[in-house]
């Protein structure tokens, strides 16, 4: 960029214009994100959903650090303790007539007699605590008297965490592959399209089952057997295809735009162009896809956990609560079903509405 002699090059220096002042005087054009935010703020439904989702996320965070529902495994109530507003169940203690037998002293012939004193001494050393079990709980108790409300909170933590983590995994895989395929094209694109076709030709529920079988019996399953990693991995591996397709289309659209050529001209490498220049311009697509997938993965996790292919048995999720609720309903204990359903329905509805609002706010052309 050397100035050719004789040609006046209009650069900021030789014209001596107050560049900074001009820049300040110009009307600032708001960024895509601040525009989207101002549009979202005008959307009442969207803002209400945002508050609900925010409240749930705070709850998840508190449950994660153990401030909320940390004691969900304690058996605080009687088995199937009804909710407070229903009232305690009537005592139905079966009365057994004690057989009246003459009290015979058998200590002379009792072979265990010499040990009783020793045993009593040892027994007295053991500390026992008499726990009083509540007759009713805020929203009832389950089969062994655990508080359903704290189970639902803990279940929310696990289900939402799985949904968000799996959505992030799927989005990362989909975006990376889509970016590479769309940006480079050619052989790489052909290969990734083939991979996409392979993954989409298998009905997704069968792919989930196959992966579940592999994770359950394979070496990976043994490493991660007591965490949410398998279910997150399964959902992420199955769910990347839709995002890949969209991101690839966006990259094909963007790769020859002027700003990308300009970036190339000033020496930006492939990686910088892909992720430094193009990605921010399509991030709204990715974000909407991410939140769409959170909803569908939460639903999928609930079904997988219900079937016993999801979270491990020492965890509680909305799906495992529903699995317990199925048998409880026959006994007339409806509260666990209602609690899990209400929590899930509230969160999923709010998140779905928020996603709609986000899409409208991010891409006004779509409306």
């Amino acid at each position, binding site marked *: 960029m050397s100035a050719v002699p004789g040609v006046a090059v209009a650069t900021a220096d030789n014209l001596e214009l107050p560049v900074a002042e001009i820049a300040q005087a110009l009307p600032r054009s708001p960024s895509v994100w601040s525009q989207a935010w101002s549009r979202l703020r005008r959307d009442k439904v969207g803002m209400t959903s945002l508050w609900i989702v925010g409240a749930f996320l705070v709850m998840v965070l508190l449950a994660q650090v153990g401030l909320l529902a940390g004691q969900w495994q304690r058996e605080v109530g009687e088995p199937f303790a009804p909710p407070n507003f229903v009232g305690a169940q009537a005592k139905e203690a079966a009365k057994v007539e004690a057989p009246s037998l003459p009290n015979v002293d058998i200590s002379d012939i009792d072979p265990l007699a010499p040990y009783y004193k020793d045993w009593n001494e040892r027994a007295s050393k053991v500390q026992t605590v008499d726990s009083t079990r509540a007759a009713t709980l805020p929203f009832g108790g389950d089969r062994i008297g655990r508080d359903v409300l704290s189970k639902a909170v803990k279940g929310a933590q696990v289900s939402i965490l799985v949904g968000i983590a799996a959505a992030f995994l799927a989005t990362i895989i989909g975006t990376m592959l889509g970016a590479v395929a769309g940006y480079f094209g050619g052989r790489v694109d052909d290969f990734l399209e083939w*991979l996409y076709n392979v993954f989409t030709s*298998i009905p997704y529920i069968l792919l989930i089952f*196959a992966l579940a079988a592999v994770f359950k019996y394979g070496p*990976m399953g043994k490493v991660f057997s007591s965490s949410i990693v398998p279910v997150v991995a399964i959902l992420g591996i199955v769910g990347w295809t839709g995002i890949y397709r969209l991101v690839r289309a966006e990259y094909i659209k963007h790769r020859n735009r002027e700003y990308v050529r300009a970036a190339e001209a000033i020496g930006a490498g492939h990686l910088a162009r892909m992720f430094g220049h193009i990605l921010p311009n399509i991030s709204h697509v990715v974000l909407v896809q991410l939140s769409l997938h959170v909803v569908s993965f939460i639903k999928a996790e609930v079904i997988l956990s219900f079937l016993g292919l999801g979270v491990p048995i020492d965890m509680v999720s909305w799906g495992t609560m*529903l699995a317990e609720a199925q048998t409880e309903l026959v006994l007339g204990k409806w509260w666990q079903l209602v609690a899990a*359903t209400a929590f899930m*329905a509230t969160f999923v509805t709010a998140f779905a509405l928020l996603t709609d609002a986000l899409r409208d706010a991010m891409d006004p052309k779509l409306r």
Partner: protein
Amino acid sequence: MRAGTSATSGFPRSSLGATRQPAQLRMLSYIFRRILQMIPTLAGVILLVFFLFKYFGDDPAEILGGLQATQEQIDSIRRQLGLDRPVLEQLWLFVQKVVTFNWGASWSTKETVANIFATRLPATLTIMIPILVLEVGLAIVCGMAVAYVRGSLTDRLVMIISTVALSISFLVYIIIGQYLFAFQLGWFPVQGWTGSTLTNLMVYAPLPVMLAVLVSLAPHTRLYRSFFLDEIGHDYVRTARAKGVPENTILFKHVLRNAMIPILTNVATQLPGVFIGSFLIEVFFSIPGLGREVYAAVGRGDFPVIQAVTIYLAALTMVINLITDVLYKFVDPRVVLK
């Protein structure tokens, strides 16, 4: 979007002679090319399934041998299954299994995999075909009705109901439906299945079919409404209105015909699911179908069943996609097959 749906747009590639070919020949060569294109995809599915179970699944010999097996027994099983051979040879054996449909017996029940397909598929179809027919039929009627009253309170109500209804897990509907209609009211048997298809259809199928259709009604109505609304906005509808065609004729003759393309696409995406069945329904209602079989196979680590079902259903999905793309041509003569 599948590759084939691009057939709806784009111009015919006017290569020499291609436009002169008779239509049937062009169709045949299209089908032939599509079948050729399936081969790499199917090979990918086979490779994926093979390597997934080979490197990430547990050692089959240890699953088969059980906990008490000695090293010699495990080695012997390994020899029988060919697990001691090189990977490529094992892959070749696997491909042979796929092609000849000879998967041997299930590891836990000793039933041959071919027999599992033959006996489980009828039950699945008995449930799924009524569901598909009712779903699509009702969705067309409801979708059209809602599109007809677009913008009104009913329209908005359907949108709200389907958003809320979708947020409740499918599980909850089945649990409550089974409890209410079968256990409490006693209108239907709670679960069961017989050898007679007629009895199954009349006695055991109605409740699961009804529940599945009810759950999908709201979202389907919303989807089909959008299909019809897309068409209602077109110029030909305005022209028809302008020349005084009654609204009913517009909807049923003009709009419905043109909306067949998205409807067909939607049905095609559901068709492969018909063969696996809604495994949840099969699990809840103890219906001995393919979906429940695969689910049970996951539970007991029965790899041949899972592998076979996965590969054949993937192949079936591809065939269904091809048939759908050919059907487009019959529904809409403007469609050009590339």
